């Protein structure tokens, strides 16, 4: 039951994008198409689960003083592995994500979970936390990129949805559109979350 709560925390109550508002840079940049958003989300899930697990397993043998550089080494290792495998087996996505894939190393979601959760909790809980937080991040990215791609480019997963006459709102796939859509989504998400919280009381 506790594990389910940890999992749900990552997706809803402590959603890294909609509630904690961390890891914004890559979120704003990669969500121009759904396939990019989904791929970035899954890459973060993989790195987050791996780093949370390893950091949790090593937490008793890692001295407090050097925990930060130790985190960096663990996280960078996982990111590099994900990068190599994506380059070999999912090249179009690897190209689309560009610089943001290696930059997962400094993504604060992963750092925050290492410091706030994995270093203080057991491996199973940490793994679940990584999965929950990662899926919460993926959910936010997919929602954001769905809105941006449908209205900004007139397609979904690259498949055109409307006829030739459809004029997409190009601003949505450009940087200002990322801020506009993200702002609206954060508003909706939090209103819904609060409504649910009050009804539960």
């Amino acid at each position, binding site marked *: 039951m506790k594990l389910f709560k940890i999992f749900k925390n990552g997706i809803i109550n402590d959603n890294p994008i909609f509630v904690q508002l961390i890891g914004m840079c890559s979120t704003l940049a990669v969500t*121009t*198409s759904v396939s*990019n958003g989904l791929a970035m989300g899954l890459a973060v899930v993989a790195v987050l689960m791996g780093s949370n697990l390893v950091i949790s397993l090593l937490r008793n*043998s*890692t*001295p407090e*003083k*050097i925990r930060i*550089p*130790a985190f960096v*080494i*663990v996280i*960078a*290792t996982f990111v*590099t*592995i994900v990068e*190599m*495998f994506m*380059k*070999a*087996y999912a*090249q179009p996505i690897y*190209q*689309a994500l*560009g*610089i943001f894939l290696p930059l997962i190393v400094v993504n604060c979601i992963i750092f925050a979970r290492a410091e706030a959760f994995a270093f203080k909790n057991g491996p199973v809980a940490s793994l679940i936390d990584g999965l929950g937080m990662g899926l919460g991040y993926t959910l936010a990215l997919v929602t954001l990129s769905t809105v941006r*791609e449908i209205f*900004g*480019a*007139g*397609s979904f997963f690259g498949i055109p949805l409307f006829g030739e006459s459809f004029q*997409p709102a*190009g601003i949505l*796939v*450009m940087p200002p559109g990322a801020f506009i859509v993200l702002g609206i989504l954060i508003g909706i998400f939090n209103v819904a979350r609060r409504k649910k919280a009050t009804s539960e009381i």
Partner: protein
Amino acid sequence: MKETLKLGIILFVFTVVSAGVLAVSNNATKGKIAELEMAGSIGALQEIFGEDVKFQPLEENKQNQIIEANPSVVEIFEALNGDSVVGYAIKNISKGFGGDLLLMTGFNIDGTVSGMRVLEHSETPGLGARSEEPEFTNRFIGLSTADDITVEALSGATGTTNGVLAGVNSAREIFNSELSN
């Protein structure tokens, strides 16, 4: 002092393990990555010159000499029909709107463009990313290499178009000065 040494050794162990893990995964993926890169180039070459044409990298000394003078050039291929050279393809890097563009431009030996492909880019989807589509790349086919190459810009993506044109024209200059005779 003793503690510092201990911490250093612990971190050292972390990095050694990390390096080992990375070496293993590098070994597992590097063959596949090289294969994909080669397949990408050959695929683009066949689209540009047609299926019957054979390709080989330009003779190494000449290729290195050109690359030294033009650092944006990545690779040059010769297109062969039987034993005779029918054209050249130049793979080079240009600056797009969202980052580097990797382009492949094919030239027929008679001085026309046989085709152009955007191999890698990080342009905006719906705008600059349309530079990959045949509707745009076909605009280059048959243009003469005697003058500066220009095409109608992609609407909303002038920056990308200019980047592609800069790359194609620098390839054109290399073709004219080094390869065409």
